[in-house]
């Protein structure tokens, strides 16, 4: 018998006294996809996200290009990699800063990305209660390596993308998963507490996470 069949046989024999459906079948009463009640969803997201030592700025929607360019100038960022589907207006503003722009059209190698200072992307969903940003790596966010290897990640979140809590986020993300896209949930910059439980920010992912929230 091959391993698969044998494991199936073992499971069925382990369950032989557990009928397929009977009165012991546990009944799930959980309501999926429910929001968590809060007065200011976007405000809560900003507060929680900043709690993780992410740098959060809040701007009006028409100020996004300007806010991105200002961040790049303020930090003196010398190079940036852009996902192929980034909003053209954002791209134009970045070009004007004079920073070196790397395109990921023909995928860059890991060590090439390692030489790039930053990445600018959009997001898919944000979760207020936990201060989490979720990327579904659509064209305006780029493939996963883009937001992993460069040391600075500038991420733009639209107010309409912010939901109260995890259940609403999971419901919104289902279509991306059905489309075969990977998801990356980001809650602050990478961190470790492995040495005497002292929190140290910045291990392997970007050491600086800058979030621009557009109302």
């Amino acid at each position: 018998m091959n391993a698969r069949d044998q494991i199936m046989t073992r499971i069925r024999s382990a369950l032989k006294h557990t009928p397929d459906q009977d009165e012991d079948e546990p009944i799930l009463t959980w309501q999926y996809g429910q929001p968590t009640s809060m007065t200011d969803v976007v405000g809560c997201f900003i507060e929680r996200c900043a709690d993780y030592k992410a740098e959060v700025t809040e701007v009006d929607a028409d100020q996004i290009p300007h806010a991105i360019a200002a961040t790049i100038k303020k930090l003196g960022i010398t190079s940036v990699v852009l996902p192929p589907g980034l909003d053209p207006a954002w791209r134009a503003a970045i070009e004007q800063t004079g920073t070196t722009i790397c395109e990921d059209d023909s995928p860059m190698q890991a060590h090439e990305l390692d030489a790039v200072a930053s990445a600018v992307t959009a997001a898919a969903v944000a979760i207020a209660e936990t201060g989490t940003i979720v990327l579904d790596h659509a064209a305006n966010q780029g493939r996963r390596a883009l937001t992993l290897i460069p040391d600075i990640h500038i991420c733009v979140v639209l107010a309409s993308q912010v939901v109260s809590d995890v259940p609403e986020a999971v419901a919104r993300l289902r279509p991306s998963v059905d489309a075969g896209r990977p998801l990356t949930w980001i809650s602050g910059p990478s961190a470790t507490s492995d040495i005497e439980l002292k929190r140290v920010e910045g291990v392997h992912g970007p050491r600086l996470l800058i979030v621009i929230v557009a109302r």
Partner: protein
Amino acid sequence: MSQLTTLPRDTDGRLTPAPPPGELIDMPRFPINARHELANTDQRNNLQAATATIRAKRALRVSEVPQWEDLRQAAKTIKDQVDRHLDSYLLQAEQSLTKAGAIVHWARDATEANQIVVDLVKATGAPEVVKVKSMVTQETELNEALEQAGIAAWETDLAELIVQLGHDRPSHVLVPAIHKNRSQIKDIFLTEMGQYGTPAPADLTDDPSALTSAARTHLRNKFMRSTVGISGGNFLVADTGTLVVVESEGNGRMCLTLPQTLISVVGIEKIVPRFEDLEVFMRLLPRSSTGERMNPYTSMWTGVTPGDGPQNVHVVLVDNGRTSVLADPIGRQTLRCIRCSACMNTCPVYTLVGGHAYGSVYPGPIGICLSPLMRGLDSPIDQSLPYACTLCGACPDVCPVKIDFPEVIIHLRHEVAEHKIRDTKPHLETTAIAAAGWFFAKGRRFTVMTWLSGLVGRVFKAKKQFGAHMPWPARLWTSARDLPIPAAESFREWWRRNHERP
């Protein structure tokens, strides 16, 4: 393509640091290991401080969620449903994974799982792999199997790296190097890193940020040249074939994203039925384990995504004793475990003794249940584990999937007793019970026994109880418990003296 075809060997002639010698299952009984571990004052202090901190953080983050009890009940119910229909859910997961471009493998036991992984890595020609922390590959001792096949396996989680470079074993499922302090870690980095890759800077201090940055530099090169990644999985979603890895440092993202080949080794109990079920588990797990609202990074991937990440995706579904757990109607509930480690941090035995005494990669309350259930009761360590518990009842309160530990532990103690009766070897406990049975069987024998016990009582009249230093085998009892001196006069004698006419 790999930039390296051969890797340097260390002074032991190995590719990766040698772990401590011996197999976990061959360790002596728990009390013997515990005595040894308790003598390590540093470890005890680190562990007490660390677990107290995590306990407080967890309590705070849990108190923020008004529906916490509903979430736990939902998680328990979902996992119970999975276990009752594990065969159908596994087949559904296999189908979803295959449809998404992953190749599914099945492994009955550790040896088979390791062989599958070794063969897959060999087929790529890679001399090394980067690994995300995973309990199941520790359980199967995959790193050693790879080393023997001439492949270097690099642990990339900071704590796992400390443990690996320190020729040590993890002592906690979440913070595996909790037993090491900063200066010990500094020494390990300084002496070991250079043998296996980028050395630590010579002026390394014991500041946690400096140590973390040394680890980042040491691993960076390994990530950039990696062609094969190996992971576990926190959850496997049956209806979409999505795998989930929850982490903090970003080493997981590196291993899951940069290599061309990704091999995920996943226990068959990791299933959740629907993608939507993650809304329950992603709320329970981070708060229960690290006491955070959310862990820094979670990766979810569904087979192969063209143009993004590994293009050869393998999933190895491992039994290795899990179906034996399923076959035990009371023990089955331990398959619900999502490895958050809350039970360990709250356990008065674990927080004193630490993870090394348990003879298993799973310590603490879940370990003393799961290890004997998975491995059987033949070894001294597994027979002793269900007794490494005071039945204080703290762990079921914190467990996010509501495992009823006292129920499982008492059941396992019964199983151990039964096992010893069936065993042909003589056991002290069963011999003592059999002897008592013989005395109780006949009135005359009983009289003789009470006379003997009265004699002992009269001889030791001056004492209240026997001390710790009794001769063997009585010492086994008195070393940790009181043994009162028997009464000088039995009830029968007293009755006869007071109520029967002369």
